[in-house]
């Protein structure tokens, strides 16, 4: 059984100007010890999915349907009290720009201590020992535990935040743009570190990023998101070498690379749509080079097109 | 070209009005202001209606028509709010004083905010020595002993409402509001579009006038509303305490009543028409401008808006 199974998940926000369909009928699975990459542009819903899985939604958000099965248990109907047992202890998250949300007036060690004691009562000595363990795991010198965030470099802050997410031994970590603000060399090290941790602890990982190159290197399977819908889901190799959804194909062709042939980049016209009034039918149709009449009227269904390869398109590539 | 600009301005005014109307306090305040503005403007018509200036002039009139009964006189048909201790029609005084209060408030706050906006923007833009000078000046102004100054001044010259308006304008202009508007100007100054304006070739004054000030003005307008409240209220208190020698104002009305001993003990109830009408108008007028200010808060500060 998969560690995490999301089926037909739908969530929307209510705003003064209308309902934002942030996540629409999304399906995917995550196996223990494997890494899933969610890739897409701004507003595609990748962060919203993470917040929905953890049920960390604001007041004006509502889950309209679907299931989130963690180890067989559906999280959707759980109350807030029940959810608290799952958050951090079983499913944990490194939020976008978390490294910038470290409280500047407390030492990093104190902040992790607070997070740990909030979830399991432990004596301070035991907690500090645990923090030292975690620091070693993420590649930080335990001695810096008692320093303040401003004394840490960007890479160190990110490692500290990852340590915090690991503190209660979760089985899944969701990392939302974990290396976006970091320089390339630091990014490389952190990604390697995260991968090492995943293997050592046999954890499931969900990476969220707009950077296809990063997703290519860290994920076993990839879900491509567009305007709140998942348009393609397959293993990494398939997504890059034989994508069938026109958006996936366009995304791959639009990314320059430092290695390989210097090929011509393909321009994608238009911009990602407004989620309050998304286009009728397939949400990608205004920008799609393969658009036909049916695309403008009916939303394509997310179906299995090959072994463990899913796509939602009327005119997919072959 | 200008046709399009007029259309655009109308469009943005309509959008802002929508937000303003949506706030609960704003429209109430606006109603109060418009009501009292009309109230004050109607005074000349009132005098015409009443006919006799000898009786109804707010400063030098005398209720000859009520003789031989004494003054102050409780409300009657010919004097709906009665007369004060010098026999002057109170309703007429109220109208006249309300109009003057508007003038005082708008001049004091208007010029005051004009000065703060300019000074704040210049200080923010140039920084360094100019900034220090204006900020130290603001510190001095905020500590200024207004009352002592006015007492001394009133011994030397006659302080009319207009002169008071100018004094308040200068104090408000170089005082605390400057610091607030300067910090707003600073948030604008560090934005990349200011650098872009410099790269386009803009000189200092073009950038200040065309880029920084327009982005500070919404906040200026907000503080102008609060400034009017401050001006009207300050005048009321200063007149009440007898520090001004204005001939007629809302504050003077209460001062006159108090000075002649009509506000002590049980007289407070009997002679309510001497202090309640002006007091009420001062409060409502100040509240009106304050509410408009609060209503504008949402328009000016996008972060306060509901999602």
């Amino acid at each position, binding site marked *: 059984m998969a560690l995490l199974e999301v089926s037909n998940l739908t969530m929307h926000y209510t705003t003064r100007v209308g309902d934002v369909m942030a996540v629409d009928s999304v399906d995917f699975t995550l196996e223990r010890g494997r890494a899933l990459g969610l890739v897409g542009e701004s507003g595609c819903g990748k962060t919203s999915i993470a917040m929905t899985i953890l049920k960390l939604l604001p007041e004006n958000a509502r889950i309209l349907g679907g299931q989130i099965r963690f180890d067989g248990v559906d999280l959707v109907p759980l109350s807030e009290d029940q959810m608290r047992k799952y958050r951090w202890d079983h499913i944990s998250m490194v939020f976008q720009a978390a490294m910038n949300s470290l409280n500047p007036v407390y030492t990093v060690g104190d902040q992790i201590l607070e997070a740990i004691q909030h979830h399991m009562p432990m004596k301070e000595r035991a907690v500090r020992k645990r923090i030292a363990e975690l620091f070693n795991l993420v590649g930080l010198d335990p001695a810096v535990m008692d320093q303040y965030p401003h004394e840490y470099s960007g890479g160190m802050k990110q490692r500290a935040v990852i340590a915090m997410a690991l503190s209660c031994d979760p089985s899944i970590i969701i990392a939302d743009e974990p290396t976006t603000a970091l320089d390339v060399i630091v990014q490389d090290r952190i990604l390697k570190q995260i991968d090492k941790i995943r293997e050592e602890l046999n954890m499931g990982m969900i990476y969220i990023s707009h950077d296809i190159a990063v997703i290519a290197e860290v994920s076993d399977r990839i879900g491509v998101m567009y305007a709140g819908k998942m348009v393609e889901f397959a293993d990494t190799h398939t997504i890059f070498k034989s994508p069938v959804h026109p958006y996936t194909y366009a995304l791959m062709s639009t990314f320059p690379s430092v290695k390989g042939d210097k090929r011509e980049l393909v321009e994608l016209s238009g911009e990602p749509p407004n989620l309050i009034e998304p286009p009728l039918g397939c949400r990608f149709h205004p920008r799609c080079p393969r658009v036909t009449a049916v695309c403008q009227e009916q939303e394509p269904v997310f179906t299995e097109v090959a072994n463990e390869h899913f796509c939602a398109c009327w005119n997919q590539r072959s | 070209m200008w046709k399009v600009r007029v259309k655009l301005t109308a469009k943005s005014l309509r959008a802002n009005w929508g937000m303003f109307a949506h706030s609960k306090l704003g429209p109430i305040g606006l109603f109060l202001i418009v009501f009292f503005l009309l109230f004050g403007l109607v005074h000349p018509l009132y005098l015409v209606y009443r006919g006799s200036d000898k009786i109804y002039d707010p400063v030098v009139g005398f209720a000859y028509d009520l003789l031989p009964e004494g003054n102050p006189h409780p409300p009657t048909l010919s004097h709906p709010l009665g007369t004060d201790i010098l026999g002057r029609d109170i309703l007429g005084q109220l109208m006249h004083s309300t109009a003057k209060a508007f003038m005082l408030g708008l001049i004091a706050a208007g010029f005051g905010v004009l000065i703060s906006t300019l000074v704040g923007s210049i200080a923010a833009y140039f920084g360094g020595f100019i900034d220090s000078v204006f900020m130290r000046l603001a510190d001095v102004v905020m500590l200024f002993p207004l009352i002592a100054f006015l007492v001394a001044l009133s011994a030397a010259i006659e302080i009319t409402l207009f002169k008071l308006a100018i004094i308040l304008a200068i104090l408000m202009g170089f005082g605390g509001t400057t610091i607030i508007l300067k910090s707003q100007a600073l948030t604008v100054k560090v934005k990349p579009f200011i650098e872009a304006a410099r790269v*386009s*070739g803009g000189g200092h004054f073009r950038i200040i006038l065309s880029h920084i000030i327009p982005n500070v003005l919404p906040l200026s307008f907000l503080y102008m509303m609060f400034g009017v409240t401050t001006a009207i209220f300050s005048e009321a208190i200063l007149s009440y305490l007898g520090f001004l020698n204005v001939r007629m104002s809302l504050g003077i009305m209460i001062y006159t009543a108090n000075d002649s001993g009509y506000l002590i003990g049980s007289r407070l109830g009997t002679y309510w028409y001497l202090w309640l009408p002006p007091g009420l108008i001062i409060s409502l007028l100040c509240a009106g401008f304050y509410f408009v200010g609060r209503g504008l808060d949402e328009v000016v500060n996008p972060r306060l808006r509901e999602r």
Partner: protein
Amino acid sequence: MNNTTVEVVDLKKLFPMAGGLFSRKVRYIHAVEDLSFKIQEGETLGLVGESGCGKTTTGKLLVKLIPPTGGHIYFNGSDVATIEGGALLREYRRKVQMIFQDPYESMNPRKTVYDIIAEPLVVQKVGNIVERETMVAEMLSGVGIVPPDTFMFRYPHELSGGQRQRVAIARAMVINPSFLVADEPTSMLDVSVRTGVMKLMLQLRKEFNLAVLYITHDLAVARYMCDRLAVMYLGRMVELGETEEVLQNPLHPYTKALISAIPIPDPTFTREAIPIKGGVSKPVDPHPRCRFYDRCPVATDGCEKLEHPPLEDKGSGHYVACYEV
């Protein structure tokens, strides 16, 4: 033979650091030091490096948003480094323009698209009202915002990120400059939108025969946009050469490490990252020796004792500042 539009010689910029409560000695950040390069007419030079390497500061120096501490900036032959204001500066601003990184914050939110693009024309007193309207409309079409009349009187918040950046490009180009400094123009745009803007810039570069300084931390983008690359580290240039040559055959140990760390969007490609210790710091009163010494995997005792290595031509215009190459 193309002319040299811009030549920078020994450019230097120091920023004083607050010394602390009791210290009297002022420390300096050596943001840019001993920087020299040329850009020909019609050529795009990429300035690449990690954060804090001095590339953005260099961009601002070349556009004269900040004054240099030392060195020369030759524009079409004349040294503009010491110009502070007046007619000379205005002349310079007619020829040299900049595109900023943030499409949201680089425009005054209270101005219409027309006002934004027309600003350089107004300030430089080019044309009358009617002529300007035509020029702005033409420019809008030129950057792919059509029909221009629909967009001219919109406000920035009504435009998408990609459209805003196109307007920014129109603003820079409307005055017909000969040199453009682009500071990370696509890094804040959505991925699917970047290509369009990049292609637009390439097209305009050809059309106007512009010299361009393209500042970016993304080497993949630099590969696509630039003819030559200059790699900066802690304020100094460590490698310079033709783009493909530098990317496929890097010589400086920092460049090698940097390129090896870039993720490749190809799951069949195995990448060998060259490990280097430590992280980037600020060049505060740096030691006169090579600034990469502390982290360099091939540093020798010689490197510790000698001054910072000069840029040397290692063959066919590929310059490196290293003793161990």
